[in-house]
């Protein structure tokens, strides 16, 4: 048997791209890493594997704690982690969702081609940057008050539809049609609402961005056809989350759990794994609060997308409808959801925690929107500014291997502090424009340096593994044209 060892943690090769850390000590289940040799080398460099091992100690964890091919060290649960816990005898863990609840990605299609945009990139990037709030303190697309925040938390994209910021098709092409019915706005603190009030419709900063992209490759014609993607087409990718409102909600519940369930926390190897026992008052409260934050994040991305439509109308002097600017899909990659999965022949309800992992339901799954049920759920994998992004579809093997999940991006390789020593924002911007024809505009040069293409893993390799395992199949690749960030 082939084995590998990193910092005293031994992995056994189960089959190609599947590595297992056998159950030992306090582990409740084994852990699995889905990676090629090259990606495993990178995953083994930081504390990802130890964090993954720690996650196997969550009460009620089922099957395996799983690290996706883009996994890297986070806090508590690793980024790129999937953990399914029993909703009756297990727990729900805010730290295993992450601070940015429903951080996610949406892609909007257009009928423009790259030729329609070439020569106008500078104008377009300037217009987007001027009209889409980003960075710290930039406000939001809409000015909101507490009543607005309450309505958004409660009703999700339905609110946006009523206020003229969405059309019906935006709802039918979003996970859960853009509304989590389990949302409980009263479980979200006043502090969180105060933070969210000034940020509704804003990108934030860090790795969040908005990109105009062109489709460069199509790998599966039938699925691409069902998704409405073809070579040379212009699309828009939006990557952001629930902003300060979601960050505060995670913080609030970590502290509440620490105070109320200290006995459970004391059994866990990392405070950031803080978990509320299934069925407890706090588990219900957190689930309601998290679902409300999910709604907020969907509205956040919806407002940005609708504002992009308005920007395109001005730049191209046509209505957005005439440019067919329709939502392809919206995926969440920091989330926990009650889902039904078959485990050892038995159907069970589980909290599936996806922290830096994307739901990847295959064709035929009832939760895939009807528009895509015959081909599988679209998955959007954002890459770096220099490497492009991918559209995948939920693969047939995802339910068996990963509780219906795949990767969420390229995954970081280099720390932000090191990135700032190695790259200079303006140089990165100039090189991307001159060598790659990618126009970048950011609030902070430091953010450009921290997000330089060289700080990420090879997204092609991440997607190759996902495709080969059959958890998320390659459909199309896109490449940046314009990028704005905070």
């Amino acid at each position, binding site marked *: 048997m082939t084995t590998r060892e990193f910092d005293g943690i031994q992995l056994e090769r189960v089959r190609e791209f599947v590595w297992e850390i056998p159950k030992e000590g306090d582990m409740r289940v084994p852990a699995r890493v889905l990676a090629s040799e090259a990606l495993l080398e990178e995953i083994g460099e930081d504390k990802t594997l130890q964090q993954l091992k720690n996650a196997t100690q969550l009460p009620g964890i089922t099957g395996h704690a799983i690290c996706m091919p883009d996994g*890297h060290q986070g806090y508590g649960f690793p*980024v790129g982690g999937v953990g399914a816990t029993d909703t009756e005898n297990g727990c729900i863990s805010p730290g295993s969702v992450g601070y940015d609840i429903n951080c996610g990605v949406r892609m909007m299609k257009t009928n423009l081609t790259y030729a329609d945009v070439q020569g106008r990139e500078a104008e377009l990037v300037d217009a987007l940057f001027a009209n889409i709030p980003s960075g710290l303190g930039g406000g939001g697309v809409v000015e909101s008050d507490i009543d607005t925040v309450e309505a958004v938390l409660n009703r999700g994209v339905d609110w946006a539809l009523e206020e003229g910021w969405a059309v019906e098709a935006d709802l039918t092409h979003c996970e859960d049609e853009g509304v989590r019915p389990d949302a409980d706005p009263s479980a979200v603190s006043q502090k969180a609402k105060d933070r969210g009030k000034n940020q509704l419709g804003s990108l934030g900063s860090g790795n969040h961005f908005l990109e105009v992209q062109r489709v460069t490759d199509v790998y599966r014609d039938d699925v691409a056809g069902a998704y409405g993607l073809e070579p040379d087409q212009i699309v828009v990718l939006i990557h952001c989350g629930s902003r*300060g409102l979601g960050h505060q909600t995670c913080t609030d519940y970590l*502290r509440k759990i620490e105070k109320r369930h200290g006995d459970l926390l004391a059994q866990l190897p990392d405070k950031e794994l803080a978990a509320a026992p299934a069925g407890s008052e706090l588990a219900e409260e957190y689930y309601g609060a998290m679902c409300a934050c999910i709604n907020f994040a969907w509205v956040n991305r919806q407002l940005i997308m609708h504002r992009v439509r308005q920007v395109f109308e001005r730049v191209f002097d046509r209505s957005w409808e005439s440019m067919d600017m329709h939502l392809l899909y919206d995926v969440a990659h920091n989330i926990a959801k009650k889902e039904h999965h078959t485990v050892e022949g038995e159907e069970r309800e589980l909290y599936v925690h996806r922290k830096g992992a994307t739901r990847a339901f295959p064709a035929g799954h009832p939760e895939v929107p009807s528009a895509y049920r015959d081909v599988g759920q679209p998955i959007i994998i954002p890459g770096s500014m220099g490497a492009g992004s991918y559209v995948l579809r939920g693969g047939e093997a995802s339910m068996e291997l990963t509780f219906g999940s795949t990767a969420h991006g390229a995954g970081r*390789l280099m*720390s*932000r502090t090191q990135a700032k020593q190695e790259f200079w924002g303006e140089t990165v911007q100039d090189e991307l424009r001159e060598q790659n024809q990618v126009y970048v505009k950011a609030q902070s040069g430091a953010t450009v340096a921290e997000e330089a293409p060289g700080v990420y893993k090879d997204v092609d390799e991440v997607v190759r593994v996902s495709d080969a395992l059959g958890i998320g199949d390659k459909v199309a690749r896109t490449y940046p044209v314009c990028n704005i960030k905070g």
Partner: protein
Amino acid sequence: MSYELRPHTADVAVAATGTDLGETFAAVADGLAAAMCDRIPETGERFSFTVRAEGLEALLFDYLDQLIYERDVRGVLPVDNEATVREAGEEWVIEASARGIPLGDVSARDVKAVTYSEMRIEEAAAGWEAYVVLDV
């Protein structure tokens, strides 16, 4: 008192020292500001606040969380942090102040939250040391 930003794959860590707990916590808070902004201008008014928690680590967590909250709600970057920390019965108390630079005056980026991950607060030969990972 001093701080240093330390590498972390996805996020940023702050290592800080001070002669007492108040200085050390304030140094971590200055590290939080440094993680958001490279150049600190001289503008802004000072503001004060008090935070109470059941333990020292919880106090540092809640103190930094409050600074992030004040940043978003006041629309300022809290810098030049000052703090005193004391034990009061069953809880710990920090009385803190910061100069809040209007966000319009700086080119700053977001730190989403403070984390407990790898958090350390330890007494050292010359005072105290603390280590905190921030979620970016």
